């Protein structure tokens, strides 16, 4: 969206409260969704739960094509459709909910920097492993990505997506990397996150922010997704404080919600700010 359109949309967004029927769209959970999309989707869901905003998750085979930017997940709220965590955070901020208002400027800079680190390293590594590693691409990514479609469309779409991702990797210089180097990068990224987290419950001590949602989304998905080998999960598991962080966020935001009756009211409003 151009800048003027974005500003216009956020004006409109600010006018309406959060509706009951907000929906989040992602590809089919069992058969189609891939690691990177699943991680992004979980990050957005976690963020919405942290803000105490109810949302229904809807799985559609063509979610990627419905999205305004071509990336999943996207949310459909009232009249607007917003995709990807960054714009969603801004959209929700325009509605008056924010997890990071209390941070000072230096901390906000740090938070943005760490979010870029996760996007730059973890997300790119996930895409690389899925699409540039031939074995994984053949065994897992292409079959899954094209599972809702029949022949020959499934072949065409799968190869087209693979070609796009490889082009992007080429442009940013990752195509020369070997798989070991990519695992090494993931390990370094987790080390940086682990050192930043230290012994605190969340990245900025007491209250969760969008950074926590993003990190949880990626790490939890890596830990619980079955790939051709477990090396990626092992890299993450070697950092115990990241593991306990994932458990903690899962317990706080996902177990409770399933246990409670669906009122949408928030024991989680302590996660959002007065």
């Amino acid at each position, binding site marked *: 969206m*151009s*800048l003027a359109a974005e500003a216009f949309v956020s004006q409109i967004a600010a006018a309406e409260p959060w509706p009951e029927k907000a929906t989040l769209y992602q590809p089919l959970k069992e058969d189609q969704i891939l690691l990177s999309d699943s991680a992004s989707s979980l990050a957005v869901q976690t963020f919405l739960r942290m803000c105490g905003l109810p949302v229904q998750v809807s799985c559609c085979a063509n979610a990627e094509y419905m999205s*305004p*930017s*071509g*990336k999943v997940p996207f949310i459909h709220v009232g009249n607007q459709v917003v995709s990807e965590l960054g714009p969603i955070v801004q959209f929700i901020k325009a509605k008056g909910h924010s997890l990071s208002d209390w941070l000072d*400027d*230096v901390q*906000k*800079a*740090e938070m*943005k*920097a*760490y979010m*870029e*680190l996760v*996007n*730059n*390293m973890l997300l790119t590594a996930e895409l690389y492993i899925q699409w540039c590693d031939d074995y994984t691409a053949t065994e897992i990514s292409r079959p899954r990505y094209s599972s809702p479609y029949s022949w020959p469309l499934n072949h065409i779409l799968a190869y087209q997506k693979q070609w796009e991702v490889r*082009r*992007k990797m080429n*442009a*940013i*210089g990752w195509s020369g990397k070997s798989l070991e180097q990519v695992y090494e990068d993931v390990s*370094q*990224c987790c*080390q*940086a*996150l682990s*050192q*930043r987290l*230290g012994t605190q419950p969340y990245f900025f001590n007491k209250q969760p922010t969008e950074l926590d949602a993003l990190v949880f989304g990626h790490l939890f998905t890596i830990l619980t997704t079955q790939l051709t080998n477990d090396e990626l999960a092992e890299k993450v598991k070697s950092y115990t404080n990241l593991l306990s962080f994932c458990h903690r966020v899962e317990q706080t935001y996902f177990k409770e919600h399933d246990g409670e009756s669906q009122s949408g009211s928030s024991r989680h409003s302590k996660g959002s700010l007065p």
Partner: protein
Amino acid sequence: MLSGGRANAVHAHTNMAEPMELLCWGGDWDLPSVHTDSLIVLAYAKFSGAKLAVKSIDWTWRTITASVPQLHWEGSTVTEPAQILNFLRKQRFNADYELTAKQGADTMAYIALLEEKLRPALLHTFWVDAENYVNLTRPWFTSHSPFPLNFFVPGRQASLALSRILLTKAESPLLNITEVEGKIYSEAKECLNLLSHRLGNFHFFFGDTPTSLDAFVFGHIAPLIKAPLPSGQLQKHLNQLENLCQFCNTILKNYFTDAAAEKRMDCSLTATHDPVDANLQKLTQLVNKESNLIEKMDDNLRSSPQHRPHRHETKPSALASERNSPLLSKH
């Protein structure tokens, strides 16, 4: 505080059989190099005390697809700034020696921020923006590349830059570069503001000695500050962030103005020259620089705080006094 990193450099000097050679783009506009990646490596080498034989690209460069900068040492070649910095660290030239684990993590995060948010706009400013490309970048690179590569090098770099921007920043409906422009420039301005907030009133990002993060930031913003761009909205924005400009000038003054003089001296010195005297000279130079920095900090205290002009008075002065007192108490 100085001794840690410098002792490493002293130890390493006695082990160097031959100097490491760095191939990079040449310098102009008061800078040792006009190319971001080359600048990063040069700055880091200065900060960590590594002696590099710097070779600018000239008529001996034969291949168009080689990645610049390149570090050659004892038969092996390393490319890409991150790899070169790792290599230098393994050779005991470590400017990050005194960082805590958390600061090391912050370094990685800020470098990722620079790559994602600032680099697309820099690429656009120098290589895609028509006025800048035709009037500044293309003539410069054409004149500094050997024949017949000079016909191909600028065009190739420009198309690489454009494809990188489009592939990473343009989502499917936005395949037109003009629509992406607004987005990347606003992200870059935000990134510069964030860096400025993070730097505050300090001289370097982690205290008083420069580290690899300083090298990366310097490499990205120095060409933007110094290049005589015909159309530079990002440059104008950056010039308003005084602490970043001063950061850049401090590094140039303290680490690179001696370089021109040193280069002439080094040409006449051979590798077997006694390293102890050279290091003693370096230490006295560093002590002088430290005292210059202390004088400058005193001046800064007396003049107004360096924050953006439209903020209110109370906040910056509180921040400034907070920032300056720990600095003072250290010295």
